[in-house]
């Protein structure tokens, strides 16, 4: 990959949500969710052919609203979650839901791209991950390497652990954790740790990073001022949860704002970043 020029793929709308589809083992596949207030939003399925250094794409419609976060099931490559904004009657509500891709979406990939752009297929709703008691969902996390039955959603200052049943058509809250503190605290992002038997969760609120033990749903560590507060300061910091005093490594090479950052599969060497400003990644 190092020898090849970066591959650029243009999106119709602005986008903030990106995930790698880990359940897909045959292809290198990413899912991108778009943000548009006025049109039906889309989920772009992007296959990267690393032998030819080219991209294949498919588009699915996500009519529920603009997508702020996207997550792919680690067990079923057709299942994914989104957090989206629903606008109705001059009210904006953040929701989260589990979706299934239509079974025949892949057949469309061999047709001309124009075709798929014009007649995109629609996602099938499996269930909502909404609990009216727990505010706006910021992101949904799948249990890493799990069987696709457990997800966590972060909504305002709550972390909710859901069990998915009946082929993911039903979701029930199994436990919750709440972030207490001064002011209106709000989770902005999170990551389910694949280590320690998947019993740890890391969340971000404001400039702090917190770790949670999912068995007791209690906080286990906190890194205050882990990152620059307001304007993203072009840094990627690596932290070791065993020593939360100092970052392991800080990268400052990125000249653009980093909105979303994910470790790649190959030992975490590759980083993919979504450049919000320019709708490219």
């Amino acid at each position: 990959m190092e020898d090849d020029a970066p591959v650029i793929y243009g999106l119709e709308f602005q986008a903030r949500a990106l995930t790698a589809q880990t359940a897909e083992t045959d292809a290198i596949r990413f899912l991108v969710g778009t943000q548009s207030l006025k049109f039906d939003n889309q989920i772009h399925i992007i296959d990267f052919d690393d032998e030819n250094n080219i991209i294949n794409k498919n588009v699915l419609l996500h009519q529920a609203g603009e997508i702020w976060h996207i997550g792919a099931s680690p067990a079923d490559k057709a299942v994914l979650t989104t957090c989206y904004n629903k606008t109705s009657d001059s009210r904006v509500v953040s929701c989260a839901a589990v979706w299934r891709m239509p079974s025949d979406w892949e057949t469309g990939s061999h047709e001309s791209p124009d075709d798929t752009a014009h007649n995109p297929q629609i996602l099938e709703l499996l269930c909502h991950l909404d609990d009216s008691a727990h505010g706006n969902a910021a992101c949904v996390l799948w249990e890493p390497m799990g069987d696709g039955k457990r997800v966590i959603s972060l909504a305002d200052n709550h972390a909710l652990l859901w069990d998915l049943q009946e082929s993911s058509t039903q979701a029930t809250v199994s436990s919750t954790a709440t972030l207490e503190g001064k002011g209106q605290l709000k989770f902005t992002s999170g990551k389910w740790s694949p280590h320690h038997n998947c019993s740890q969760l890391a969340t971000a609120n404001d400039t702090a990073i917190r770790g949670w033990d999912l068995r007791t749903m209690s906080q286990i560590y906190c890194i205050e001022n882990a990152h620059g507060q307001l304007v993203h300061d072009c840094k990627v910091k690596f932290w070791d949860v065993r020593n939360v005093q100092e970052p392991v490594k800080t990268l400052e090479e990125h000249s653009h704002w980093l909105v979303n950052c994910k470790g790649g599969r190959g030992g975490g060497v590759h980083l993919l970043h979504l450049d919000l400003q320019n709708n490219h990644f």
Partner: protein
Amino acid sequence: MAILLTDCGPGRRRRVHGMLKLYYGLNEEGKAAEEPESLDPCDINGPHFDPELYLNKLRRECSLAELMDQETCMVKQIRSLDSDMQTLVYENYNKFISATDTIRKMKNDFKKMEDEMDCLSANMAAITEFSASISGTLQDQHTQITKLSGVHTLLRKLQFLFELPARLNKCLELQAYAQAVSSHRRARCVLQQYSHLPSFKGIQDDCHAIMDKLAQELRQKFRDGGSSAKDLSECVELLLQLDEPAEELCDKFLSHARSRLESDLQGLEAEIRPYPSASAVKDASARRLSSTTGAGSLTNNSPKTNTLPSPTSNTDILEFIDRGCNEFVSSLCLVITSYQELFINHAQTGELASKNIPQMANAKLHVFVDDLAARYFSLVERRIQEEKGVGDNSLLVRALDRFHRRLQAVAKLLPGSTVPNKGTEIVIRAATERVKQYLSALQSFYMDSLTDVRQALATPRLSVAGASVAGGGSLLGGPASGRDAPTSLPELLSSLSASILNQIKSVLASVHLFTAKDITFSNKPYFKGEFCSQGVRESLVVSFIKFVCQSSRQFCESAGDKGGSTPPALLLLLSRLCLDYETSTISYILTLTDEQFLVQHHSPVTPVTTLCAEAREAAQKLLNHYVKVQGLIISQMLRKSVETRDWVNTIEPRNVRAVMKRVVEDTTSIDVQVGLLYEEGVRKAHSSDSSKRTFSVYSSSRQQARYAASYTPSAPMDTNLLSNIHKLFSERIDIFSSVEFNKVSVMTGIIKISLKTFLECVRLRTFGRYGLQQIQVDCHYLQMYLWRFVSDENLVHFLLDEIVGSSAHRCLDPAPMEQSVIEVICERG
């Protein structure tokens, strides 16, 4: 006949001589004449003269009259030559006659003398005969006398021998040891020789017994040691003559001296405080410090003062060294002198020299001196190490000088000794240690000054007498000024800068004492070279400057993410301080150092340019950080204002939001603050009415084009993409780029960060119609006031344009407000 020589005069006689000589073939030098003209057969004076040729020539060449003249002249010459010859012959004859007379007279005299000599020889023979006969008659008597005399001597010797034991006993009684020993020595060989005769054997045994007793007494006396040096030396001398082993004596002498010297050392050791109870010392030293030095003195700030009690409350270092010199070193010198007198100088002359005693004794002395000196040095070093207070350096320097000076006496007495060199090494170590202490004192002074500045910044416009920078005090206990604390930034800066410079100067002056001319060790190569360049310049001055730069950089690293532990004003002030260091202060300090210490750089030293570069880097980093911190403070206000509002359900804007006014106010006060320390800087030419020009771009073509793109779902992608790519390359703004050292650049950086945050926050929200309009109003207001702060007003235009554009993009019902209405609202305030 004609003749050549025509003239006659005073030279004539000479010439006649010459001609005679020529005639005999001699020239003036007595050699055979070889002149070429003499070969001329016509030269009448030459040896090859041919009369025929000459006559023919004359006849051919001359007229008759001339011939006549020639003839006359020739005749005249012949006559004169003849008369000359007669005179000479006569003179010779006379001399010959007188010689004959003389010889005859001598013949007569010799005859007479011969007769007298014969008579003399006859007389001598008679005398010889008489003498022989007299000798013959006296021979017998002479032999007898000689024999008698021999017997007499022998008898006297025997008498001496027989009397010897008694005599020795008497000497012993009278303590006339020297006499006893010399008597015994005289008899010893004889007694040894005749010891096979019983009577002599008896005497020998007696003598031995007595001498053993004597030696015993001498040893006792030597051991007691109470006697004077002269007695002692006599004692040793006698013992040596008694064949007492010299090595043993040396050892005894030295061990005896050692016990005395060790008591001196113990006295010294007692001076070094054997660590009494810590609290008492703490109290004592605290009391002493507070009473003797100013409140800001560095000694107070050194944490070591409390943990390691300084024994100075007992005796100061000068007294200590004095005592060491007067007691230990002078006793040591005395010991060396008397030892050398006894075992080395004395032995060199006598028979002892042959036994290699001087060498042995000398080696022993060296070991002895080295050993004791090492102990002395370790005590001195312990004492020096306790000198922590950097208040008055002159005391230490004087003490070291005295210490060093007194060791020179040892050097003179004991030429090959390593002691003086070791002493010099101690002085060098002490000096190096001192330099280190001064460095840390300077560092803590600097940090304290910064704390004071911090306090002054935290309590502005108040007279803080105690906590002012001036109150930081001077190192050497100068009067802490009681004037009011300077509160404005430039005043704080200049007073900080001045107090640091003063401190450096006073430290330099203190350290300079080490190299003063009247200090004995100042002419050692170390103090002339390495101390100045590596010690003072590098380890002290350069290290301090580096420390200033490094500590400044630390403010940027620690405070950045951990929430502004460093006040922004301090960052700004330090940045200016570092910049001033870069432009002038560093080169001033280094020049001052080089001049004071006449540094000759034998080893490579840090060049001024390196330090300046470091200072500049620190200044840059601080200023960048200042921009970031201030930018984030304003960003925070903007972010909260965007995040906490429901932008969908908001009422139609009537006013500019209060937070925007606050942003403008804060920006203005930052502008004032920066303006106090930094120059204005350059900005691009303003348009004639910058505040009014707002959003003409937005409201016209560009924004419309963007909307158009969004409204047509099928084919907008390419144009949108293209315009975005174009934007990426043409108008990219580097938000956290380095700022220049001027006000405009600083303000530009802060405003860039603030507006960029505003933009990012807007992009995370969804707006209703009036939400968008409120943003329009707010942005117009910002435009009216912010353009004047930045270097390029287009930057503000561009970012505000982006904000409005983004909120329009995030708007459910994007119906922008009329420009005229916006202006009215903004002008109303």
